[in-house]
């Protein structure tokens, strides 16, 4: 059990925040994101394959997170529009409300590629691998997502 604990600690240390941020952007709320991180950890401990590299491990974790978030959103449709709206003004992002509003207005399909692109620095090929989509689809989502953000963030947007 000690080894398992050590492993779990390592994952949280290395990837905890990363996975939390991704889940947070995906679900647009904190509590669910924490649950997701926990569930990802459980799956890691139970089902993780042998990884070829740290990159591989990271990508695996992100993919699992993605799938769990996707399922959770489907499940969350039970919640009404009102309740969800309050969480959109996420307290952590208050200072960045303009950016956060723009991002959270994007449908989840766009948000997740935008996040993986801007936050994690993945290329569209890599994002396609993580999400199990076609690269052309990812590129299209990125492009549309960026266009939508650009419209909102005209003054700060920079093509660089």
């Amino acid at each position, binding site marked *: 059990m000690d080894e398992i*604990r050590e492993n779990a600690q390592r994952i949280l240390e290395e990837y905890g925040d990363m996975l939390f941020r991704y889940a947070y952007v995906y679900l647009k709320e904190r509590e669910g994101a924490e649950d997701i991180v926990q569930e990802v950890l459980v799956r890691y401990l139970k*089902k993780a394959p042998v990884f070829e590299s740290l990159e591989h491990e990271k990508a695996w974790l992100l993919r699992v997170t993605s799938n769990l978030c996707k*399922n959770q959103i489907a*499940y969350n449709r039970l919640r009404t529009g009102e309740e969800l709206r309050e969480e959109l003004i996420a307290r952590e992002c208050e200072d960045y409300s303009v950016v956060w509003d723009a991002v959270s207005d994007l449908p989840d399909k766009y948000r997740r590629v935008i996040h993986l692109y801007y*936050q994690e620095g993945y290329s569209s090929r890599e994002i396609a691998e993580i999400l199990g989509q076609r690269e052309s689809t990812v590129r*299209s989502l990125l492009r549309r997502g960026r266009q939508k953000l650009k419209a909102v963030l005209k003054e700060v947007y920079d093509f660089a």
Partner: protein
Amino acid sequence: MTLRRRYREMMDQVTLSEEEKQRILEQALSSVKEEKEEKKPVGKTAYFKKGLAVAAAFAVLVTGGVTVKMTGLLTEPADEGAGEKSRTEAQSVDTGQREARKAVVGDYVRAASYDEIYAAVRKESLWKSLDYFSREKTVDKATTEGTVKNTDTTGVAGANSHSDTNVVTEGVYEGDFVKTDGSYTYQCMEDCLYIYDIRGSKPKEIVKKKIAPREIHTLYLDEERGQLLVVWGKEKNGGRDGVTYVTSYDVTDPGNPKETGVYQQPGYYEDARIKDGIFYLFTNRYLAVEAFWKKEKRQQVIPEINGKRIACDRFYVRPEAGTEYVVSSFALDHPEDSIDQMVIMNHGVSVYMGENALYLYEEEYDKESEKTKITKFTYRDGYLNGVGMAKVTGAILDTFAINEQDGYLRVLSTSWEEESRNRLTVFDEKMEQTGGIEGFAKGEEIYAARCLGNLIYCVTYHNTDPLFVIDVSDPENPVMKGELKVTGFADYLHPFGENRLLGIGLETDPTTGENRGVKLTMYDVADPLKPEVIGVKVLKDLYASDAQYDYKSVFADVKRGLFGFTGSSNRTEEKQVLLFRWEEDRHTFVCKKQKLLTYYGYENTRILRQGERFFIAHRYYDSVGMRREIPLVEPFES
């Protein structure tokens, strides 16, 4: 300040505290411990109300930028066969069906030797060592393209009439995760092929066969020859050396598929098209640019199809290149023999295969604007020949917004400057522009398009949706004919019989943009100057439909007045599969069948018809445990 920096600064505020991490750790550990003790089946935990199955582990990703140390030029591996070739190749091999190949097609320049190809990759490898990820990435429009005359899934007529995959261009077939011949369905999910016998009252699984190490991408059923083609992929070396395979099976006895051949093409599967008995496979590959000085990595630069290196003159190079888009063809009669190959040393492109030509297009950005570069290739008998290239301003936003008819190519594109603008451009056979319409529907974007002969219908949207009708019968003078403003928008348009156009989309509040539900619209397009809405139905309980992003998910049987799709439901976490009939005499939509999918892990659904019976075929996220209870194909009852 860049968006990236701002985004990251914002995300820096989002962290887990030490206590939170501790709590997560303890709860996760106790969950794992519990299971070990009780030996519960994998995948069930207390936190999710329904059992979840997570996607199977997958391999590999490109590693982050590795600095390249150039230790000097090494000699290139010896090339047999190809050697130096003159730029203009006039040839006529074997069958005499290949025409002289152009050396330059727009920006695409054919390689004259393998050296040129290596040089391009070497240059790119220098780039790679300088923060590859900060370079601007070209972004493409989604999936597949084409134009349709009056395509639907009516499919095969006759005794065992059944539906077929909804495709973009009539006569140009496409793969899908499920195919049927009326008596059996052939489906793929993850690494397995499943064959069901659907002749009885309940579909029965007769074959379950693991085919791929991880994932089967798509299937194509060649009924004429009684063969099933399965497209799957394999990754090696940390995902760099992906290979795509097309395995053909003799399914004349569906209970007993027999492998008859394998076709192998390097790269990750992107797309496939089948026309006139020829299969066209499109893959995309990234070269191990950062390790270019290693001999085995350089050898990887020249792809081999079924063990044979692609000749250098089949490559279109650019000065520096780290990616290859590979296209090849084979005949369904001889699925192991490659007819022709082509490599574009480019980022991936989008595919539109019209009746007469193949168009590969991609977006290009410069400081001020965005353009889409479209390159035309003929593909007769499987031979790929570049014809010409043209550029349009803006991006092509919809699968059906690029369309070829009678040799002319019509393209609808949207660009963003101060506000968005839309345009139509028409090109002739040589890809020279003949005419166009500039700047319509300013401030809106193209959401859907469809061509019926020489009339193009397109939906633009900001808060309301005008349906525009453009007459392109004179390629030099396309004319905007009618315009119809309605609320909401259509994501998908489908020709629905004489003078009828069906739209599947959403109803929205014109002032707030709030989603009011999935909307079905029937347009009367008899008079191009005055399109009219003659039937509307808003499905308030659905907030989205799969038709929005997956044209293959649409079932259309115009002859029977039926169409169907899958919608996502507001009230529950479930999806609904719906079959509607358009009643022409009463101008109404009648729901004929409706099924709630209670397992919310469904990824894709298809409605199939065999005779007068209907079925729903599924593919969902992860199987093993769940699948035992949920059939992959089931009867679609009312």
